[in-house]
């Protein structure tokens, strides 16, 4: 259903993504890992058409979405939800309005200006917020919520779009371990219960292993690993991050269960 063929993005002399190709035949949860600047964000942004691809094709059910323009492009974007590291909500509007923004592709500019949304949509938005456990914050301004709550509002906005694919660009990089777990579990549940494809850029290996069915590793714009979490050994991870033998996963882990003090650190304390 999703097929990338030699997708490339160049910014001037820099190549952010170099001939990325992979294909997905059924909805699954995919994690993309790699160090900063490896091209993970650019790859997701090209799938959402936020950034135009320089060359290559992104086929969704046989249609190349990189060629879409105008209202066809916006229609694709409404079916391909995006979640950002910094949430990208409208801070001064209330939570429900932010969730209702997921329906903007179907609404006219005039009704948007007067903030008029159908009653069914409002009820549905609050149902989604309830599913994510934040219904009681419905009338508050988005900026009044904590980071973890704001990210769940962003997920609610994505669900309001009723998308086939959800792209998440470092969804937990700004969150503490507890909220990170809540957000990742919410994404996993959305995949399992609704059968939506989820593609997430992740900055920790344990998150990718724990929540994803398939892991793609990127290094300097190229896809260097594509396999199951089980195939993602420490050696492979070192290759992806270009790290030497001193690289240890435990130091980057955000998982609560693995946070046992290492003997050396404990002794130093």
């Amino acid at each position, binding site marked *: 259903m999703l097929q990338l063929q030699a997708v490339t993005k160049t910014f001037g002399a*820099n190549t952010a993504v170099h001939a990325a190709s992979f294909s997905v035949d059924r909805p699954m949860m995919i994690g993309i890992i790699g160090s900063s600047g490896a091209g993970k964000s650019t790859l997701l942004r090209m799938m959402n058409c936020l950034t135009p691809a320089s060359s290559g094709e992104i086929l969704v059910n046989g249609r190349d979405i990189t060629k879409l323009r105008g209202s066809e492009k916006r229609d694709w974007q409404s079916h391909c939800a995006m979640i950002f590291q910094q949430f990208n909500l409208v801070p001064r509007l209330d939570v*429900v309005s932010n969730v209702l923004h997921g329906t903007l592709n179907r609404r006219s500019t005039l009704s948007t200006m007067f903030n008029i949304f159908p009653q069914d949509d*409002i009820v549905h938005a609050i149902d989604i917020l*309830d599913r994510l456990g934040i*219904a009681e914050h419905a009338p508050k301004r988005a900026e009044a919520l904590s980071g973890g709550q704001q990210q769940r509002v962003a997920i609610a906005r994505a669900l309001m779009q009723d998308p086939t694919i959800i792209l998440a660009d470092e969804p937990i990089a700004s969150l503490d371990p507890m909220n990170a777990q*809540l957000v990742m*579990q919410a994404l996993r549940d959305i995949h399992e219960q609704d059968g939506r494809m989820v593609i997430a850029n992740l900055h920790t290996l344990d998150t990718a292993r724990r929540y994803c069915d398939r892991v793609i590793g990127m290094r300097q714009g190229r896809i260097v690993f594509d396999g199951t979490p089980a195939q993602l050994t420490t050696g492979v991870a070192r290759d992806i991050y270009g790290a030497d033998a001193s690289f240890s996963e435990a130091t980057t882990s955000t998982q609560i269960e693995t946070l046992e003090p290492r003997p050396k650190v404990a002794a130093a304390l």
Partner: protein
Amino acid sequence: MTATSHTNPDRAGIQDSYLALARSKRWMNLVLLILFVALLVGGFNTAGDRNAGGFWDGLPNVLDFPADVIAEAIERGHLLPGYMAKYLPSLIETVNIAAASTLLGAMIGLFLSLMVTRGLAPLPWLVGPLRRVLDLLRAVPEIVIALVLIFMLGGGPVPAMIAIALHTIGALGKLFSEVNENASLKPVEGLASVGASWSQRMWLGVIPQVAPNYVSYALLRFEINIRASAILGFVGAGGIGYDLRNTMSWGQGKFDEAAAIFLLLFLTIVIVDQLSSVFRNRLTHGLPSAKVTL
């Protein structure tokens, strides 16, 4: 524990109260819209009633003047470059008045803006009085100040410069202080923690953050001041406005020269606009040679 198994027992209550809230907001919007339209129509009618000649009767004649100017300018188009060269010195005088008054007004306005921004002001009790001073500077039309000063100091560019600078202090002081309000206080706190004085905190903690906005407001003000100093020429402050008044009078047959002056003013504004966008880009994004970072 899964996030999605969570349900709030009062979901229906939350939905009802939010829907009620949305309804009342919608009513409020409708009332405001009706009020807005009523004010628009009412204001227009009031202005129309007080109009000496009658708005609707005069409307067809509005285009007579531009039509005459354009007709004469086209007829004697070959003379326009000569006129432009003739009036260039007066244009330079006008731009000079505008530049001096903008520079002076921006510097004093910058200082006053920091004095009237709550959270930054060193003397909080002065915030209110100083704001009233800024209001006063904006309230008195610059042409009034210029006329008084011309009466006392005699005609010439200096009274015009002072008059425009006073208005600029009022306008930029207010705009700059609104920009200051949106500046992050974190760098200011960081500098306070090392024992920096008020002026040091402002110079290093606030001004670098807001400088691009300052520049765009100041350059917009420069454009406005070019026009203002041209207008002040009408009342004897010199510059291109004086020439414009002489050539614009009906029946002199000098509309071609007026057209040349309009063109000069237009080109000046275009140049200022282009320069300001180049300058602002450089200030916000660094030099154009800087590399794109991912």
